[in-house]
């Protein structure tokens, strides 16, 4: 059970990390093309 919760906390973290990366990617695209 503990292990499962640990796995899920990691998934949540990855979703948030992925979305921070999306925002950074958008900043990069704006820097390159705007």
């Amino acid at each position: 059970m503990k292990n499962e919760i640990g796995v899920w906390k990691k998934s949540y973290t990855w979703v948030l990390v992925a979305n921070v990366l999306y925002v950074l990617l958008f900043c990069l695209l704006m820097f390159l093309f705007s």
Partner: protein
Amino acid sequence: MQQIDWIILSVTLLFIVVYGVWKTKGSQNVEEYILGNHDTPWHVVGLSVMATQASAITFLSTPGQAYHDGMGFVQFYLGLPLAIVVICYTFIPIYHRLKVYTAYEYLEQRFDLKTRTLASLLFLVQRGLGTGITIYAPAIVLSAILGWNLTWLILVIGVLVIIYTVAGGTNAVNVTQKHQMFVIFLGLIIAFFLILHLLPNDMSLSNAMHIAGANHKMEILDFSFDPEKRYTFWSGITGGFFLALSYFGTDQSQVGRYLSGKSVRESQMGLIMNGFLKIPLMFFILLIGVMVFVFFQFNPAPVNFNPNNKALVEHSAYKKEYEALEVKMDQLSEEKKEINLIYIDHLNQNYDNPILRKELVALSSKENDLREQAREIISKADEKSETNDKDYVFIYFILHYLPQGLIGLLLAVILSAAMSSTASGIAALASTTAIDLYKRNLKSEKSPKHYVNATKFFTILWGIIAILFACMGTLVENLIQLVNIVGSLFYGTVLGIFLVGFYFKRIHANAIFWATVISQLVIFYVYYIDVVGFLWLNFIGAVGTILLAWLLEITIYKGTKKIPLD
């Protein structure tokens, strides 16, 4: 549209419907019919959640939005992943533990019957109207541009959806949505590469994005605090968060999707998949719109993409004025093409020419002026006409520039999206009516088969109501706006009830019930006096309900007898 388009369109839609019916018919108990026997794997849950949210108007409107206003709309989705994490962490484990069929069932276990019934009724009003518009919105665009009969189109979409939703319940919705999403992804990817292929001189994606950037279409993020601007980074993070929390956490059309998951984990994983994919998906759809914009820098574009508006002006006293604008637009198109070709030549030599960029901005501004003048003429010809043509940009491009066969596939994309969100809508309306109102208020227990038949009956009933509402759409001025407003009127209050349920354990039934009633009346009043934009009503409704419930609990209902929590 050629014969091959008709064949592709009909075969795709019929295959999805027939396969859905064949694969899922014959549910014997309500758990299988409404919750799919808790047998749905995570990737199907994920696709189903995605298909429910992506309605036809998403694929018609979003590229048009990017065409006119650039990529900024993607910011609206920035709060969604955060909301999904909250729902996975809090909402889903509770729904699964209590083994509920609908989200509102939880409210009786946490509060009481009257709170459950109130929330169910608020949902039925809001989603009932919403499902009608899900059919009406694409039908009005397709009938205008293809000349199809509006009523027949609404009937075809509605009846096909009713057939498979009634036959197989949640399983049928899931199975068909899996195929519908496949068609949608396939269509969008092919369309994207084809647009790139249609650009002149084998233009690279990078050069196309430079042209878009020179025309201010690549301003993806806006960190300003200007309240006048609808889409900024901050409004996306806050407003988008509340809207997504309410939509994914409390709207039965979404809750029903992930409650069919095999386990808590599979449901969570399905939603997490959306947390990962929603922003890239919306970015991709907006990028298609931006590429359509780049395409029209080298090809003539109409001053207004809605053919109804052109027909309207042609039969009015403003015909000559409008034609003069069209001539000016054609001349401008030639000018833009010339400058853009020189700009690309310079880009190919690694030189981003600032003078040409300025010229492109000036031409773009001239084009916007011409479009504004066209809108004014259309309004003068008929002040009730919808001058905003963003819903028509992508479909105009599809029909005029894509090859035979692909037109059929992209129309299948649009109709698949219409059907998938309609199916989730009527399935949710039927399950809420059957479980929260009908079954809960029956005096004696009936057989499982009885409840399956009752849910089927309510599915047909809500399907017919949605079709009727869609048929009456033309009678109501600016229906889409109306439904968005109706949604915002109720979403905040319902979210407030659930947030109190999950996070404020000291607040009990009477306090939340009366807080909801008062807060709902306040929301109606705030809307009536028109002091804030209607999107803010979501936030005000949620926060108002929570604060009022807390105030009532510590004052009027202080020390009253509490019903023990689960």
